[in-house]
Each structure stands twice: as C-alpha cells, then as structure tokens.
C-alpha cells in the first residue's frame, strides 16, 4: 500500500511539475490568435484561474484542492475536470478492456498452440507473421483498417464512439456502439497481440519443459490435456504479471488509436490537455489513469492467489 501511495505522489507531483516547466500556460493558449489582451488583463486572468503565485504555492494549492476531492475546472472545456473525465473513462475502459482481453486470449491461445508445434511449419508461419505484425506501428494498422473497412468497403463507421441518431438505452444504440468499437479494438488487438503471442509461446515452452509435464506424460495424459491444463495454467502466471505491469501503457497508449478513429478516450483528452496547458485537466487525467492502473494492480494482486495456489494464505496442514 505504501508503494501505491508513493506511485500516486510521484504521478501527481511529476504531473504538476512537468507541465508547469513547459513554456506557455492556459492563459497564453486562451487569449485567441490575435493576442488581443494586454499584460494587466493577462495577470487578471491568471489570478482568476488560480495560476498566480510561485510554483511552490501553486503546488500546495493543487494538493489542497485534491484533498477536498476537487479536481478543479478545465480551462479548455470550461467544465469540471471530473465531468470531462467521467465522459471519457467508460469509452477508454471499453476500448482498452475489450482489446486487452481479446489480444490476451488470442495471443495466449496461439502462443500455446505454437509452443506445442514448435519447429513445424505452422509454428514458423505463426511466429514470423505475428512478429511482423508486432513490428508495425499501431497508427499505421489503424489507418489501413480505416481505409479498407470504412472507406473502401463501407462496412463500418469511421469515427466516434456513439451513433448520432439513436439514444442510449435502445438496442439500436448498443449495436451501433458495438460497430464503432470494432475497428479501434481490432487495431489495438493487432498492434498488441504479437508481443503477447511471443511471450506466451516462450512461457509455454518453459512450462512444457517443467517436471510436471514429464510426470503428466509418464502418466499417459493426452497431449491436449498436458498443454492446456498443465502447462498453460502455469504459463499464465508470468503472462498475467506481464499484463498487469503493462496496463498503464495500454491505457494511455490508446491515444494513437483514439486519434486515428476520433474516439473520445482518456489518452486523447490528456494529449489535448497538454497541448492546451490545461493543468487541472491534465492532472485529473493523469491521476485517473494512475488510479486505474493501481486499482488494476490491486485486483491483480488479489486475483493472483486464485491462479497460483502457492501464494494462497491457506493453512499448511488441514485438520483431518
């Protein structure tokens, strides 16, 4: 827990400090292209936006605000940061969550089967194909999918998360939301499945060398059972750890895909907040991502014993 507190502190502080070091502040961005305000007017705006005083004072104030549970107001959107983020979070979670689950499932299944067939043609094809896929930049994959499926074939919508002509609770709305998820999710899956596959394959090869596999073979278990019940269960452990470690990257790395498909996600909003020097929004977005990552890590920590009985806090000897 102390670890998580430290992460939070570092995230908030870094994120306070770094944007303030960058040239330009919200008022500069805000005053329009003609720079029609004079120095006194700018000073007044800075005070209005709580941007006056030394860096240390502002840092103190930002903590005081946070302590009150107030994320502040976004200068760029003139809305409370909390509501700007609340609008985006579900979409990022849907996008990244779905993509992660799918990429993980495909990567692990393909990795396991390739490990089983290692050295054969199908394995060589899978390894080289997925390695090549892994080598392509994500935005490039997205662009190609967009060009083919939205522009050329017209099968899927090209932008956004929600339909413009259906309201939330309806089935039409839901199916349209699903359709709009297809391309972004597919892009993220294609961009990440390669590395999951290679990791899974390596973990499976290790697991297939483990003594319990020898024992299972000696007992005459079927190869399928050995691979999927014995080896895979064990190979999942390092993969699971890897997944939780890279969650932060996945969550924020979606910005590229969000850009290509104009998807209203957190990565994009953080990116735009940096460009607008919208300190409060940037800090809020950063905090949210960090908290989400920490939450995912906590969940992972709690789920790990379920995967690995060795770390369960069970009594060593059960009463007979």
């Amino acid at each position, binding site marked *: 827990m102390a670890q998580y507190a430290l992460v939070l502190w570092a995230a908030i502080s870094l994120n306070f400090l770094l944007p303030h070091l960058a*040239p330009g502040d919200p008022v500069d961005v805000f005053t*329009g292209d003609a720079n029609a305000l004079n120095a006194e007017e700018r000073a007044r705006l800075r005070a209005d936006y709580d941007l006056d005083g030394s860096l240390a004072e502002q840092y103190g104030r930002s903590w005081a605000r946070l302590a009150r549970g107030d994320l502040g107001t976004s200068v*760029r959107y003139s809305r409370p940061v909390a509501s700007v983020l609340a609008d985006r979070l579900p979409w990022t979670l849907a996008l990244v969550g779905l993509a992660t689950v799918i990429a993980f499932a495909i990567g692990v299944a393909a990795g396991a089967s390739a490990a089983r067939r290692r050295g054969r043609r199908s394995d060589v094809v899978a390894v080289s194909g997925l390695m090549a896929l892994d080598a392509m930049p994500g935005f490039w994959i997205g662009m190609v999918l967009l060009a083919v499926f939205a522009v050329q074939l017209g099968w899927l919508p090209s932008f956004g998360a929600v339909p413009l002509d259906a309201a939330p609770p309806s089935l039409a709305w839901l199916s349209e939301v699903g359709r709009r998820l297809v391309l972004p999710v597919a892009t993220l899956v294609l961009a990440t499945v390669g590395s999951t596959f290679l990791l899974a394959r390596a973990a499976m090869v290790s697991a297939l060398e483990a003594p319990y596999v020898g024992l299972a073979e000696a007992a005459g278990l079927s190869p399928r059972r050995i691979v999927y019940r014995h080896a895979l269960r064990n190979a999942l452990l390092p993969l699971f750890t890897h997944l939780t470690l890279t969650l932060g990257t996945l969550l924020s790395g979606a910005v590229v895909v969000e850009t290509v498909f104009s998807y209203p996600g957190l990565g994009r909003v953080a990116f735009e907040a940096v460009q607008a020097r919208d300190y409060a929004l940037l800090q809020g977005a950063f905090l949210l991502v960090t908290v989400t990552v920490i939450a995912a890590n906590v969940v992972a920590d709690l789920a790990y014993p379920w995967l690995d009985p060795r770390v369960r806090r069970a009594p060593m000897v059960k009463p007979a």
Partner: protein
Amino acid sequence: MVRLVKMVRRAARTAAVVSVASALAGAACSPSPSSDDQRPASAPRSVERLTIAVDQDRGPLNVFVDADPRLLELVYDTLLSPSPYVGKGKPWLAEEVRQVDARTWEARVRQGVAWQDGRPFTAGDVAFTFQYFKTAPPVGSWTHHVNDVPTIERAETLDAGTVRLTCAFACPDLGPITLSYLPILPRHLFEGVAKPAELTGLPIGTGPYRLTSYSPTSGYRFTANRAYFAGAPLVGEIVMPIIPDVNATFTALRTGEVDATTRSVPPELVQQFRRQPGLQEVTTTPLKFPELRMNFLRAPFDVPDFRRAVSRAVDRADLLRTVGLGQGRPADKGYPHPGSPWTNPRLSTPTDGREARRILDGLDFTDRDGDGVRERPSGEPLALSIKANGDEPTHVRAAELVAGHLKEVGIAATVQVIDAAALKALATSRDFDLTVSEIGAHGVADPTQFVMSHRSGYLWQAPKVAYPEWDVLFERWKATTTVPERTAVMFEMQELFNRQPTSVPLYYPEEHYAFRPASFSGWAESPGFGIVHKWSFLPREVARRVDALSQEFGPRR
C-alpha cells in the same frame, strides 16, 4: 389563419423530407461519378437534420472561453449584422441604431424577441451585456471592443426599448464594428457571475439555434429556434460530431457519415474532392493568412528598415506555389487582408530581393568574411531562428521556404519547431526572432483590432515602446468622428505599417469547402466565416437583407 400557416409549413416540411429521400435515392441509384451528374434539380434547401463535423471540442460554447465564433453565433445574436468584416451593420437585434454625437450611440432594440428559455429580451439585457463585458474577466477577442478601442464608458437604458452607449473618445465605428460583433447575453443568467468561464450550463441566446445537448462523445446538437424573430431556420436539427483528426473528418465526409464540415478541404485534396461523386466542392476567400512575425523588441528587428528588407526578401510567389499549391493570391498587398472593406486597397508589398540586399547593405549588414552570410555591424553573423508550430505542417514548410529566401539575401535562418502553446507563450516571453503562424479574420479584417494589435504587443507595444509616427496617427485616429474620416486615417496607419512591417503575410490563401449537396443545398459564404455559419441556415432573403453573403452555392448544374 394560423392553422393555415401551420398546414402550409407542415406540407413544406413533408415535401422537404420527400425530396431528401428522393435525392438520397437518386444519389444511391446513380453510379455516374461524373462531376455534372444528373442530381435532382430540387436539391433540398430545407431539411430536418444535417450532420456537420467540427474539428475541435470547445466545451459547451461559453462566450468567456475560446469558443468557435461560427458555433457561437448560431446561439447568440448581435445588435447589428452580419459582422465587422462586411463594413456596414444592418439592424438585427436592434431595430435601429444611430450615432447621436461623436461619442454617443443609441440603439432601439427589437420588440417581441424572446430568449431561448422563454424570457423576454429587453433593452436591459443589451445595457447589461456592455457593462458586463467591461468588468468581466477579459477574454480573447471580445474585451477590447468595449474596453480599449473603443472604450465604452457607460451603457444605460433610456427606456424599456432604448439603450444609450457613451464612449470615452469618438467612436464612429462602434456601429459597424462593436455592435456587429459583440454577442448579446441574457442578463438573468450572467448577472452576479464573477467567473463566467466556469459556467458549465448550455448557453441561452436569442439566436436561430439552441444548443440542446453537448457531450464530448456525441458532440453538439443544435435544435432550430422555430420562433426565431428573423424567420424559422431551414434545418430542423444540426448535429455536430467532434472529429479532431483531418483524415478522419474527410473520410467521414466521403463515406457520407457527415454532410459537411467546419474544416476547409486541404489544398492537396481539392482535386480529389472536386471529382468525388456525391460531393460538391466550392471555393471561398477567407479573411486569414499565414504570416511571418518579427520580434520588434529584439535587434535587428528594432530597425524599421531591416524589417522592410525582410519583407522584400520573402518570395511570395514561391510560398503560394509551393505551400499554398497555387490556391490563392500572392501576398503582395500587405497587411491586413486586402479582402477586408477596412483595408487600404493601394497597399503594395512586392517581393524584391535586390531591394532587400540594398537596404541591408545600407544598414551596414554586409558579408565581410565572404561565407555568404552577412554580419551585423557588431561583427556577429546575421543568424536568426524561425519558430513554427510543429503541429502545422504547412507552417513548418513555409518557415523552411522563408529560411531559403532569407539565405538568398545573406541572412542565415534555421527553423525550430515548438508546440502551439509554446508558440503562443512567446507573446509574453518574447524569446524569438521570427515566427510563422496564422492569423484569422478578427486579426486581419477588423480595423479596431489592427489598432489593438499595436497596443497589445502583437504588432507593436504602444505606448510602452516608442513609435512616434504611430502615436501621431493614433491621436488623429481617435479624434475622427465619422467612419470615412476614421477609415482614411486607418489607411495611413496601414501604409506606415507596411513600410516597416512587424508581420509579413506569406500568401492570401483561398479556401475550399466540400459538402453533400443531396443533403442540403443552402450553403453560402459569409465573409470571414466560410460556409458553416447561421446565414447558411436562414432563409436566403433574410441573409441577403443584411448583406451577409458574399457567395451563394446553389446546386451545380
């Protein structure tokens, strides 16, 4: 009688819907991609719904935040119309305005107008608006119109229908500029609000559209104000999804997911969209241009003749040809935009490398060591940096070209890219030699902003930085009491500026817009606003009455 009107209206609406449907069917059935395809002659001028992509999420359209004026003016109205960029304001929310004397204006407001929440609009709202802008936190382009040039001292109601505005010095241009520019705000929603930028509700105006929903995911949804005093809008509902990416925007336009966009078609796509079946492409003359700004506080740009030398060295034809792909005009008519009615038509800023070299030689900037780069009188080489926004590829390219032009006359320049916010921060830090950026209509077509830009540090920092010639002109300008007199002084100011410019237009671009004519055919250009603005959505005769349109785009034949 009322019933009859309603019936007619309903019939018209039905006809509109039918014609949309048949147009769509026609478009779908006709595989011919030729530009002069057989589109139904009656492309719809009145439709239920239109989808227009906007390029940026600007929040729920708060006047006190940097909102897109094209969207804002759907909701809000001004006393006069259409805009400062046309030259004359015609009665709009005001039934009549008159200049009582050099410093005083009176406006008789329109009766029977209601705010979109049902409250009646009164002269009190108008007086409040001007007072409020004077004391409210300053914001971008609005504030100087009441607080600096011109300075409105007092705004008061004379009776329930009349407002009197009193200026600190003569303000003959208050009508055509300020009153045609400032949105009139509802007193009942802004009174007592100290930080209007933090208002988060949806705006309420008197305008033709009400913003009925805003969300970053689904964008903006505007619903027609059927009771609009100037006539019911032609489009029942305008849906504006936010598509920040250029490629995605034009993909959506091509696939038909949107009918139009606030973005202009990039020059390199114009040919393509001209040929694209189902799309119509039109050319407009925007009031904006990319500019090369000089830091007049820093040597050698503090020398007026040096600035002229730089202006002469810039190869305007090359910039237009290479960066603007020839779409526009070379920027040889100076600053501000020649398309503005407030710009001196006799300005001339030709490219002349020989002249530039002659000026530099005369200023004792000569190449003494023969390396092709001139030295300053102090002996240091004349090496400068040009900063440009890395997000704007055309600006980076323009900067690279300008660096080449300067090299021709013996000035070494390197291009440095920074991000947009850092570029804007240079206004305060002034840590630059040259920048390439873009300036829009308010900067280059509003004469009061031209004066303001000399006071804000943008074109000059008067009166802090000495500029006696300017000060003389400024005093003369303030003393003028009629628009023609004032314009005459303005023309002199512009001549002075272009003799020793602190900003050089690089080319005057033309703009191209593309839309799906089968969905809506009422598009028209209003100066400085492109095609997406309220005049496209109002009955033609209404827009024509106030000279709002510079071009009308009927269906192509």
